[in-house]
């Protein structure tokens, strides 16, 4: 995908993640400068998680999602959720914990899911950048209220 088109789509989608939504969900917006979208989740129990979505080539490819601490350092371990989306094993490509869910680059490039093509969900409402983040947020909410 041409970078200008990728950037335009990224900026259009990110512009809709407005202050009302951030406030309602308790999200912190760290970065929305193409190609990086960084959002922090905060829970009432004090737990926090920062997600770095590398959106180069959006939406020809899904974002690469990295778990980070609040200061932006990559996490070497993550609490696993009941659904198994937050996968604590080392991804073959990154060697780090990864998001094992449709919509994350690490899922679609994992040897176990290589046949589950991004193209089958790409462009649907559930798999916009906001949709992917919302799914991850609900995973987070299943661990932290």
């Amino acid at each position: 995908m041409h970078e200008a088109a990728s950037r335009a789509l990224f900026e259009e989608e990110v512009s809709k993640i407005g202050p009302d939504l951030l406030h309602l969900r308790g999200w912190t917006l760290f970065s929305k400068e193409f190609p990086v979208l960084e959002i922090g989740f905060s829970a009432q129990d004090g737990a926090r998680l920062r997600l770095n979505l590398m959106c180069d080539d959006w939406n020809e490819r899904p974002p690469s999602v990295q778990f980070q601490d609040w200061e932006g350092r990559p996490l070497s371990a993550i609490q696993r959720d009941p659904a198994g989306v937050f996968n604590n094993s080392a991804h073959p490509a990154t060697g780090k914990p990864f998001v094992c869910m449709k919509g994350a680059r690490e899922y679609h490039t994992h040897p176990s899911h290589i046949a589950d093509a991004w193209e089958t969900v790409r462009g649907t409402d559930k798999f916009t950048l906001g949709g992917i983040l919302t799914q991850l947020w609900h995973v987070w909410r299943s661990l932290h209220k």
Partner: protein
Amino acid sequence: MAEHNERTVDVRVITTSGVYPEAGFETLPEHEVVKTIIEKANKKLHITNTNGWIAVVAGRKIDINRSYRENGLSGRVEIDWGPDHGAGGDA
């Protein structure tokens, strides 16, 4: 529009595609089903496929096929509307 003396709620729908209504809240009768404003929001915000989406109010999942009253909602209601968590891949 709510009728005179009818109990009402002030509602808005918040999504990652935008907010409905764009400003303020819609005042609706308590007995109206939540789905009505969800459908209006979907149309206005150009959301076409909501299979697997959930509505959450104050951290609690609600049933959009029931009324505000049946969902125990009153006053100002902010509906967080979006896809539920995805399924893990067991990698």
